[in-house]
């Protein structure tokens, strides 16, 4: 690896990251939260409000970010699911990222505090994610948003939810989703891809950690049915899903499954932009002051903006 900034940062991250797979969920959460860097871009948005929405499974907390600038045209609504292996992180961990996303895509961002494992097993997180999308679609106008431009987005385990929610909406007759944004998504609880073998350790996110995350989420080793609402590659087909932006990183155990999912979407005719970053690692894109992340985010914002249909509302499918 040539980039000393990357290798230096990886060293720090590797040394500093707690061995979560040896902890309980609560311990791991506390250990990771303790590493959190304060948010320095509060002013990126006009307002951020915390709300509790009602779902079939009970109350669900969301944080809604409104970009600056005067009203006028209804804005896209990005429903965002944070990463953290279905176990870690929350609204606070990705607060800075959501503010940036809202500012640069000129979108209302709804960040979802979905239920975490191991306390809540699959598909609890997916059910929350889906409920949040339905809520956002119903309340779009109230949020200043455009119900025809609902986007699901997430990094890592959040990328899983962003993908799964699109399958759920398709399968269950949910609201139309305009685009899905999957940043190094967690796709499959099988740990034997080439990238899993090559980057099992030493690149921040480890195979051991991934095994542990999945075990927490699944409550064991079995994927509950319907499997593709937990492991989205298992869908019989991926036709009819919304246009996708997929980001993968070269030094990521999850690289191959991200690639595979992008390929599956493309095979089924789903419009796709797949950005692959050789030489970068899982989680790089949300690090605030990291050159490659700044660059990748700029490209991501542009991709989100350009993959969305024009501001003119289009008709929902009958």
């Amino acid at each position, binding site marked *: *690896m*040539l*980039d000393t*900034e990357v290798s230096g940062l990886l060293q720090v991250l590797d040394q500093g990251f707690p061995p979560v797979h040896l902890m309980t969920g609560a311990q791991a959460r506390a250990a990771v939260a303790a590493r959190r860097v304060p948010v320095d871009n509060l002013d990126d948005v006009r307002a951020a409000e915390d709300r509790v929405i009602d779902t079939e499974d009970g109350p669900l907390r969301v944080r809604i970010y409104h970009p600056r600038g005067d009203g006028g045209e209804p804005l896209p609504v990005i429903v965002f699911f944070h990463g953290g292996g279905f176990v870690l992180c929350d609204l606070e961990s990705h607060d800075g990222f959501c503010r940036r996303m809202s500012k640069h895509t000129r979108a209302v961002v709804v960040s979802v505090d979905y239920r975490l494992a191991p306390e809540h097993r699959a598909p609890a997180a997916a059910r929350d994610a889906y409920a949040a999308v339905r809520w956002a679609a119903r309340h779009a106008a109230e949020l200043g948003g455009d119900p025809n431009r609902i986007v699901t987005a997430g990094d890592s385990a959040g990328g899983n939810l962003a993908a799964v929610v699109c399958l759920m909406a398709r399968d269950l007759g949910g609201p139309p989703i305009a685009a899905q944004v999957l940043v190094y998504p967690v796709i499959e609880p099988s740990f034997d891809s080439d990238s899993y073998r090559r980057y099992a350790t030493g690149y921040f996110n480890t195979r051991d950690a991934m095994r542990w995350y999945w075990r927490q989420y699944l409550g064991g080793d079995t994927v509950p049915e319907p499997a593709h609402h937990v492991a989205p590659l298992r869908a019989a087909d991926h036709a009819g899903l919304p246009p996708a932006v997929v980001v993968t990183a*070269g030094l990521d155990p999850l690289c191959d499954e991200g690639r595979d999912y*992008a390929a599956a*979407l*493309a095979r089924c*005719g*789903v*419009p*796709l*932009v*797949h*950005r*692959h*970053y*050789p*030489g970068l690692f899982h989680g790089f894109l949300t690090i605030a002051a990291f*050159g*490659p992340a*700044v*660059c*990748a985010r*700029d*490209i991501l914002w*542009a991709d989100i903006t*350009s993959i969305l249909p024009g501001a003119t509302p289009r008709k929902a499918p009958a």
Partner: protein
Amino acid sequence: MNTSDDTPRPETCDVLVVGAGFAGLYAVHRSVAAGFTTIGVEAAPGVGGTWYWNRYPGARCDVESIDYSYSFDAELQDSWVWSERYATQPEIHAYLEHVADRFGLRRHFRFGRRVEGARFDEGSSAWTVTADTGHAYRARFLVLATGSLSAPHRPDIPGAGDFAGEVLFTARWPHENVSFAGKRVGVIGTGSSGIQSIPIIAEEAASLTVFQRSPNYSVPAFNRPLTEEEQVRIRAEYPERRRKSAYSGAGTPHETYPRGAFEIDEAERRAAFEARWREGGVLFGKTFPNQTVDEAVNRLARDFAEAKIRAIVTDRRVADDLVPVDHPIGTKRICTDSGYYETFNRADVTLVNLRREPITAITERGIRTATGSYELDTIVYATGFDAMTGAVTQIDIRGARGSGIGEAWANGPVTYLGMAIPGFPNLFTVNGPGSPSVLANMVLTAEQQVDWLIDLIADCRRRGVTEVEARADAAAKWTEHVSEAAHRTLFPLAGSWYMGANIEGKSRIFMPYIGGFGNYRRICDQVRADGYEGFVLTERKGTEAMTGPTSAVRTTADRPVISLAGKVAIITGAARGQGAAEAELFVRLGATVVITDTNERDGTALAGRLGPSASFRPLDVTDGAAWSRVVAETAAVHGRIDVLVNNAGVWRKAPLEEWTEDELRGMFDVNLLGPILGMRAVAPTMSVTGGSIVNVASTAGIRGHGGALPYASSKWGLRGASRSAAQEYAPRGIRVNCVCPGVVDTPMIDAAALDLSRQPMPRAGTAEEIANMVAFLASDAGAYCTGADFVVDGGATA
């Protein structure tokens, strides 16, 4: 002229190359060879680039011609004879015309069209390129081989349009003969063009006035014709010379004096300077290590050069004006002259020091300075170029996400590896800012970058990547590294065109990469080995597929069905012809290839051309000990051997009576014993991972060939050896097959002389068509094939 009504439909291609100079010609050649549809666009009516336009008297290169010429093709190298050490412009131009003809490059070019605009369409991942003629092109990839010194700089002097006499520009010299006889000539500028042309103009003109702003160091070329003896030596030493150059500091085999300037005494130092001075030209700037880094060492070189100037120029005041005082020697390009300083001893030559008396205006009759007036019949502008960036920024380039090249480079050029610009996907510069370019032998730098870029584009095709773009942070970091490297030297102290200092308002950034050509090559190779770290590789669904390779097996998905990724292959007889085609295809399909042959020269050249995935090992297949060495070395370097292709063979057609016993044994040794020795040598290593052996036999080994009895017998024998080996080695996971080509167009067989009209497909096969079958059997696609013969003969044995 850009009329909207009659704009022709754009021509489309995979790769569009702008420029038909050294870099552009090679880029088109490589791109075509890699199987891409390719168009070259050139402003001039013919090939040559810099060497087309700069036809001024005395124009010649300041790098020795045996170095300043292509290295990619050994036959080209050996067939061209340079008449002198530093060839003149006409000879270099003739060489490029020869290259264009030899490789059939002209048909890919559209001449007389100057590219004015380029716009990237993100939806289709393609560039639309427009020319001043109104022609338009669409290409997935855009390669700007537009040259470093190709956008002439014309200083804005008041009254320039008023001059009633003749005006000439060295960089746009007329094709017809220019006569200076009886004329009063003024030359503005004393860079390379001025310094080379001034002595010749002075010979002919009635009088010559030289207008000098900044004096430059110039070292005599000591140019001379190359003797017959030298020609022979050059050819003998060429492979070694090129090998050294490929990883040298500047793309030539020259090295600095082995000891530091202060480690030796005055006499030795003088002798070292004198010796280097006698070698001629720019090399003097690198006499001692650190000469452009350590001011004290540089001072010694300056003193030496100054004494040389003063020893020639008789008028002390003129000499004072000619001695550079504003920059360390070598930090501006040292000029290479033939009689420059001597010219100022002529009574009819006047030097005007513009530092003392700047030009105030050009008038109808001549040039007026602050203190004088010079009546002239002809003014020659030798005023340089908007170097390194000018030819790129004069094109209106619009990239992704709304970026324009003007804004992107407003504070100086930002590039990744001197080849890619963030915000401009699928656009590449050859010899661009941030690459060694003008600090090294630009023919070799062009070859290295073009090889790297075409490999990148081919990798994109293989992986379904439609867009490749440098990351902004990676480019910022590289550009910073380029600047830091320069600031460890004395170079930034000079107001040079390297720094953009000759152009008013241009950012002062040291543009070329001074870290050395060899180091740069290693960095590029490392970036590739790391999967193109620093780039973003994008796949867009719905973009048009690129044309695939014309020869490799393909599917509709535009990717080769077969892959040799991760496999290590030994190919015998691979320096030329059939074996070379196999080596090339194997590399393209992802294999690491060990090229073996007794022909070391062509083998080395091929390995160099195929890049880091290929290497060369000398091997006589009839020598069992040599086999052991090659196998041991390959296993040590690459850790495995997956494929052996026994391709080496000899062919001779003659009645049996005409063969001596030794000749008969010799043919069996190469064609039959060789492959057997090879199979035996690789089997132990190959059985670790499993593997595939492909023996190249012949249809003469299937049906007999009267008139070539020994050959046919050896090939029948080889089929038997293969089948037996297949049985013996199957338990060890090794497959063994034969490919039996019919008539193939290679240097070994003169296919054109054969009558093929009765063959079902009445033509000779190509080496690539045979290589495809070899690759199939070598790959996992042929996993169930062993002990069989695969005939590729256009139906000849049907």
